[in-house]
């Protein structure tokens, strides 16, 4: 896959950092402001897709990245499940109970497990979208 012109590359290099920063902002404030795990996942995946489209890459490198992102995905969704299962052993022993202290409404560290779920889902969605995109690109490159 070929990259694009140096104008696109330069702009992409600057913009990607801003997009990541925006993603991190929404994910940490997911329980306070609009947005949350899904939006962030898609935003970060968009940044990755921008990088791949702008700079281009050979198939071998893309394959390494695909393996990495699918591993990330499995780990993060497993973390989500473990967070939910953890409720079976803590507190009142009910599946999906919010077992951490709730804190004060409107503060950054509040709402118990919700921010953790948010982060797990965010990473999962981002990794999933990146894997889907890379799988399509690799298939198109390998089978002509």
């Amino acid at each position, binding site marked *: 896959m070929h990259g694009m012109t140096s104008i696109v590359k330069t702009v992409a290099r600057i913009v990607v950092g801003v997009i990541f920063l925006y993603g991190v902002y*929404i994910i940490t404030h*997911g*329980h*306070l*402001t*609009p*947005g*949350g*795990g*899904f*939006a962030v996942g*898609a*935003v970060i*995946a*968009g940044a990755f*897709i921008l990088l791949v489209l702008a700079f281009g890459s050979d198939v071998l490198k893309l394959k390494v990245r695909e393996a990495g992102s*699918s591993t990330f*995905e*499995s780990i993060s*969704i497993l973390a*989500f*499940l473990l967070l*939910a299962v953890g409720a079976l052993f803590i507190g009142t022993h009910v*599946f*999906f109970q*919010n077992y951490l202290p*709730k*804190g*004060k*409404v*409107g503060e950054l560290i*509040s*709402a*118990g*497990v*919700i921010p953790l*779920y*948010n982060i797990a*889902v965010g990473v*999962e*969605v981002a990794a*999933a*979208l990146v*894997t*889907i*995109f890379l*799988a*399509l*690109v*690799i*298939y*198109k490159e*390998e*089978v002509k």
Partner: protein
Amino acid sequence: METILAIIIGFMIIGALFALHAKDLLSALIACGIVGYGLVICFLLLKAPDLAIVQIVVETITLIIMVAVVLDSSRRELKEKASIRVKGISYVNTRYVVNIIAVILFTALLLFFFSESIDVLAPFGQHATRMSTAYIEHAADQTGSANLVTGVVFDFRGYDTMGEATILFTAVIGILTILRIKGKEK
């Protein structure tokens, strides 16, 4: 408010019809984008900022993937013609005309049945909450989340969200399975 929404939905219907009838697949995709982004504006008007954010990014990524699929194909669609030509004389293609009449009749029938059957339900803007009354009243003190949608998605109905993350995982495994180069070992 209702008029603006009605106009936007009207545009979305026109966009959808254009997308389904465009000759070039790329312009069909762009027209499909009209429907998707019109939906974003509707979400904003309907006081659903979470949905607007998610829809706008998801729509963009879907468009990128769809364009990537379409871009190196021939992009042309084989059309069914309204008239056929046999030995220099042109006849009206009866199958085409019958199709159009059937579609119009069926649509009118379904729309009529739908509009007749929904007249007992709550009109637009006068929705009465039942299950979500508790979600609205107790979200702040029982989940600690200031964003009620996040509270519902991750706490009251976190089980649904786990299912949804699982669906994305399933789709990824499925796509990796479908797009592997060799299906069988020789």
